[in-house]
């Protein structure tokens, strides 16, 4: 856009401060040699789509869906009229779109190939499963290597499988909603995902069932020049409740990696879905994700989103509040470090009376990092009693960081209340002096201040969940790191 300004390259902030406010990125930075039986090769064409369909033995309707997705993708321009020009650095003809070892996902970790097991053990996934999860799906490149859900949940009728199994084995539930919350043509990347999707979860929670422990998916990229395109559909039937958590990491390669997921949530009458993400991709990953939920009458969809990693993330979780008194919420934390652009936000579409939405977004720009908030709130005609509250706060850690906020709020009619507030601030010198006068080093004072800024949102995340977030919390608890 015409507002674009350039930022001169400048010295990074001092190493100690960097360490103190940084998160553990090294943890995911390892990979194993590739052992792929199926490889769709480099580049994207109609043949690539057919290759994937053949390997996965897609039903015809899915094959047709994929081809339509490809066509839409090719016809849609890059959204660089409003988004960053960095998107032009994605070379679609250099990416590998499908890599898999041809194995079905295992129900026991013992059966998982050793290097895959080691990968997930290093990431702490089996340990977390034992500790507090109701089910886990672990995806390695294009396909799930492990997928298991607690037996009693299965008996209650909970379905927790990968998308391939979902569309084949549960077509009657899967197909009516698949691609309905996010149509193929929603944006260029949802179209791309529709063409080459593989992996991701299909979840169905039966009527009235409240799943106590979270379900988790872990998305792992192991291969270079790779694109991961998981597709997740979660349906909570009337009165059901579920929390789903996703984590992700990738090794840091020289070349760029693409991650472009589509996540659709359907909360039927009175249902509640909470979707928690801790995104910690390595800094060569383009993370371009489309996420949206439909909330029917008295239902609630909450997106709890933390973006720490990636080179560029573009993600604006949305809620379509379709039934009366439906609620939508987006809680978002973004940390943009040197070389990163976190372009995140929320879309709240009010489509019934007395619907309520809430957006709280906090971003931290460090060094030359850039954080952008984009929001859309729409309250159309002939509705009554809709409410939206949006708060976005940005914290800047260094003179060279950058933050932007671009909300768009459309309200029709005089029976609604919307409120939007945004602020930009920095850790003041006065605050740092105060903390240092108590003997706390500058670096530790900075990390205390940063954690203080996001503290109220961190409490929205399940405590046990992620290594990454835990570390952020630990900084607050212990204070004197650095």
């Amino acid at each position, binding site marked *: 856009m015409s507002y674009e300004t350039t930022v001169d390259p400048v010295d990074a902030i001092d190493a100690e401060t960097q360490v103190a406010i940084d998160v553990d990125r090294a943890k995911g930075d390892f990979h194993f040699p590739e052992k792929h039986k199926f490889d769709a090769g480099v580049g994207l064409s109609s043949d690539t789509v057919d290759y994937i369909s053949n390997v996965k033995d897609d039903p015809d309707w899915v094959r047709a869906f994929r081809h339509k997705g490809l066509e839409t993708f090719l016809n849609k321009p890059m959204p660089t009229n409003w988004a960053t020009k960095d998107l032009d650095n994605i070379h679609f003809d250099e990416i590998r779109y499908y890599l898999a070892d041809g194995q079905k996902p295992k129900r026991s970790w013992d059966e998982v190939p050793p290097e895959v097991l080691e990968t997930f053990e290093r990431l702490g996934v089996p340990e977390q499963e034992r500790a507090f999860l109701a089910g886990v799906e672990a995806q390695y490149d294009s396909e799930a290597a492990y997928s298991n859900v607690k037996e009693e949940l299965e008996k209650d009728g909970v379905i927790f499988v990968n998308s391939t199994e979902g569309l084949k084995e549960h077509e009657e539930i899967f197909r009516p909603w698949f691609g309905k919350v996010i149509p193929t043509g929603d944006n260029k990347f949802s179209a791309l995902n529709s063409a080459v999707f593989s992996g991701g979860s299909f979840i169905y929670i039966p009527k009235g069932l409240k799943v106590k422990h979270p379900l988790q998916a872990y998305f792992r990229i192991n291969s270079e020049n790779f694109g991961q395109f998981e597709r997740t559909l979660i349906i909570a039937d009337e009165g059901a409740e579920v929390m789903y958590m996703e984590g992700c990491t990738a090794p840091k390669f020289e070349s760029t990696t693409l991650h472009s997921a589509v996540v659709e949530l359907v909360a039927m009458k009175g249902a509640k879905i909470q979707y928690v993400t801790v995104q910690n991709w390595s800094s060569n990953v383009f993370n371009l994700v489309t996420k949206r939920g439909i909330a029917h009458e008295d239902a609630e969809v909450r997106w709890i989103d933390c973006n720490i990693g990636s080179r560029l993330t573009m993600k604006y979780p949305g809620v379509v509040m379709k039934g009366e008194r439906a609620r939508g919420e987006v809680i978002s934390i973004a940390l943009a470090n040197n070389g990163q652009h976190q372009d995140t936000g929320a879309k709240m579409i009010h489509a019934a009376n007395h619907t309520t939405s809430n957006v709280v977004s906090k971003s931290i720009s460090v060094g030359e990092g850039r954080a952008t908030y984009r929001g859309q709130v729409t309250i159309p005609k002939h509705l009554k009693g809709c409410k939206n509250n949006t708060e976005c706060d940005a914290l800047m850690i260094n003179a060279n960081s950058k933050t932007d906020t671009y909300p768009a709020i459309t309200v029709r009619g005089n029976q609604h209340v919307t409120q939007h507030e945004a602020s930009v601030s920095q850790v*003041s*010198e*006065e*605050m740092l*002096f*105060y*903390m*240092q*006068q*108590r*003997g*706390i*080093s*500058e670096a*530790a*004072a900075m990390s*205390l*201040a940063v*954690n*203080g*800024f*996001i*503290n*109220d949102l961190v409490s929205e995340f399940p405590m046990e969940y992620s290594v990454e977030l835990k570390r952020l919390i630990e900084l*607050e*608890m*212990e*204070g*004197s790191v650095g």
Partner: protein
Amino acid sequence: MSLVIKDLHANVEDTPILKGLNLEIPKGEIHAIMGPNGSGKSTLSKVIAGHDDYTVQSGSVTMDGEDLLELDVDERSREGVFLAFQYPAEVPGVSNANFIRAALQARLPKGEELDAVAYYKNLYSKMDVLDMDRKFTARAVNEGFSGGEKKRNEILQMMMLEPKFCILDETDSGLDIDALKIVAKGVNAMRSPDRGFLIITHYQRLLDYIQPDHVHVMSDGQIVKSGDKDLALELEESGYDFLKEGELANA
């Protein structure tokens, strides 16, 4: 411990504020500095603490013979210098308990962890002295605090960190008489033969509750008059007009 300030000159940007200040506070003593607004009292406290905005041009500040001016702010604090701020900063989102804990943790050798149980026990006992509600530990540092709560919080931190040398900068400002008494109680509980105090105040009021050993008058960046606690009463009665009238001969 003893704090010795010799011929201290300090500037804010290019403006000299401290102009050859001399002061010695032997261990166990409480010294009060009084003086009109703009005399440099608060600057002195910031310079001792090591604030970046002030540049020391010449002179020295030593504590038990160690040169404080060589140290960073946080190093001075860990050496035992404590400043109770006139306007304590707010630290949003960071609870008091975690803040004080971080400050104590910073004083431990690397790898050593603070004993959480002992810490809370200690914290609660000090809070009781200052008549502070337990809920206070969960509130963010100084955020939304009343003037009195902020000052009490300063004294609580002082009691927890057990410094060698305490500077109280206008701690009495904005306090009602009850709060003032509580603050004084905390300070008096801290009095010890090993600890020195510098109390900066505009009014004599606080000194009714914390008896100073010496009172100094500061004007235009220097100590211009020194005496015992009666000097404070004198000043309260006759004000600082004498400074203008050139009656500095007896300083």
